[in-house]
């Protein structure tokens, strides 16, 4: 099964990289650019065919390793069922 985890920084936490990219785009003349926020994605190939079970496991992986719950939120999506 192919699963995607998208990780973003919590809204209240500052995102200096996003700010710098926004400035970079505006300097290039893209004046229509407003806020920019950066995130990360993790694409996982997971053996298993019960989507619920896989989701539970990936959720656990997120909490234990993939995301930093102190400053990040995450969303798990099944991209391709087994």
């Amino acid at each position, binding site marked *: 099964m192919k699963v995607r985890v998208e990780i973003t920084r919590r809204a*209240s936490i*500052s995102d*200096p990289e996003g700010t710098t990219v926004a400035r970079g785009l505006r300097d290039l003349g893209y004046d229509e650019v407003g806020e920019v926020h950066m995130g990360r994605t993790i694409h996982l190939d997971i053996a298993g065919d019960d989507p619920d079970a896989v989701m539970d496991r990936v959720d656990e992986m997120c909490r234990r390793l993939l995301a930093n719950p*102190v400053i990040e939120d995450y969303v798990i999506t099944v991209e391709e069922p087994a």
Partner: protein
Amino acid sequence: MSEPLHRQLGMTDDEYDHVVEILEREPLDAELAMYSVMWSEHCSYKSSRVHLRRFPSDAPWVVVGPGENAGVVDLGDGWLAALRIESHNHPSFVEPYQGAATGVGGILRDILTMGARPIAVWDPLRFGSLDDAHNRYLFDGVVKGIAGYGNAVGVPTVGGEIEFDDCYAGNPLVNVMCLGLMKREQLVLSAATGEDNLAVLLGNATGRDGIGGASILASASFDEESGAKRPSVQVGDPFEEKKLIEACLELFARGLVVGIQDLGAAGIACATSETAANGGMGMNVDLDAVHLREHDMTAPEMLMSESQERMLAIVRPADLKAVLGVADRWDVSASIIGTVVPGGDLTIHHRGELVAEIPAASLSEDAPLYRRPLERPADLDALWSETPAVPTDDAAASLLRLLDDPAIGDRSWISEQYDHMLFLNTIVEPGHDASLLRIKGTQKALAVSTDGNGRRCRLDPRRGAALLVWEAALNVAVTGARPIAVVDNLNFGNPEKPEIMWQFSETVDGMSDACRDLGLPVVGGNVSFYNETDGIDIHPTPVVGVLGLAEPYPDPPPRLDRAEAGMALWLVGPEGDPDLAGSAHQRVVEARLEGRPAAPDPGAGRSVIEAAVVLADVCPVLHDVSIGGIAVAAAEVAIRSGVGVQIDPGVDLFGEGPHRFLVAVPADLAHDAITALGASGATHRVIGRFAGDEIVLGTEVVSLEEAANTWREAIPRRMG
């Protein structure tokens, strides 16, 4: 909630009443928020101030002593060094990467505030055992955070020190020390002087970062609730800091600021009130001018925000245009948020409303002062009554166990993640007793050593703290530098417990004694209390940073890796009974902590330091004897130099008595070395020689290769 606001903010009823007395009325919300943070333990030092006064802080070369953002000492020929140490313990437990990163950012701004360019950072660290996955996570995150921020901001991290002990598992220590360098005319102070001068806020936009964090994260102990405190995590932006450093240095160089202050705990509230109070003036502040990241902030939120990478510059109106020009050139945001006024009142408006009007100086000068009760811990008598056993056999096995300890083994896993070479000053890099930084274009070099030993301080905080100062001073001396100043970071448990306060008071006395005996001024420091988790306090963990000046510096300077076969191994320093109390041998081999550490011997200590300074010009290797005793010290030289060493039978292998160092002496230099020693009054004895490919401890033998591999793998094999 039914609790009155001041209690929610962590203020006692008495403190609240005192605010009412000062203002002669009930405080407004923003005012109360300001007092609550400025009068917190972290900002006001209310429990420690009465003790810190006992530190000696004068010397002819002290330009700025404790009380400013950093201490400043005169290096001669117009050069000044600024130094400061800080802790970021609690934030690093909550989020190790960002906690450590923002710790680095904060200390750099303290140095910058004096007018100096930050040139180097040191990072004393404490964690629980690396056998535990969470401790590994914290350790890895903290090191990456220091690297991530320090490397990117362009200030080399050239040293530090580390211990692992279970008392730090729930409360790691992340201390950072910074050294800055400047010419005398660059010195700036944090005073807002001159009526009508303007307060310009430079750097990052203000957001809801760490609001209340200073008081909550730094002053309250950890417990089950720490999850709830998480929203106040601050994120560091080394890029913004780098621009801010360059912009500020340009402002200083062009004489465009009359005063400057970094924004740390209590952000705008603290910076505006402190600069005004220091200048004996008042200030009118307009919060609507502050550049914001989040637009719906309330006045207390703006005043308390701990958004990183901000500075408050006081500038003459005539210079404003030039100041804004410099900011613009470096893409640093700037807003004019205040005007200096006579009278001493800090008056703050937000959206047309008066949100605060208080005597600026009252936030610091009227802060509470507590003389908390002291009580000697009941278990000390029992600990002292044990006489630590002097190990007599299994020396080879013990040595290998010691070399495998992550606090003794090779620490390049840490130091190689840090840029430690930038600026081309580093002539002795991390991994030696002290790092040595040359000042290009001069004969001067600066040495710094940071040292702490929580276990020895647990057994006897007074002697333990004094021994630290002696050890750091000797570490500096073996690079050829004379110790000239000290900063200290006092990491302690809960000050409301009389035993902790007793440890604190003893520590201050022990450090003061040692500093007086060495003629060393304490020019700054920091206090971190409430290092406890679920009621368990850490060991009393003072950390000292000693600055030394070598002039002319030895070229080449002594190093651990310059021993060669045929050189003699000397021990310089007093011969006493082996001192095993609180030693690494007790910890690693015996799993014990007991006995009473030896007291320092000031006479011997001074002559040994003098001996080291002169020998540094003569001999290729000087190495002080500390953790793990002579066995570990000699093994380190052997491993680093790739040559075996033979230590004569009968030598005190694992004792950690003070004031001793090893020297590798080439035969043709023995005469010069003896002559050099003669003047110092220090005693020496030949205890072995470098040869072969084994480490010989009296009658026991370890292969150099096995010792080297064990030492090298101590951290990597645990960290994967």
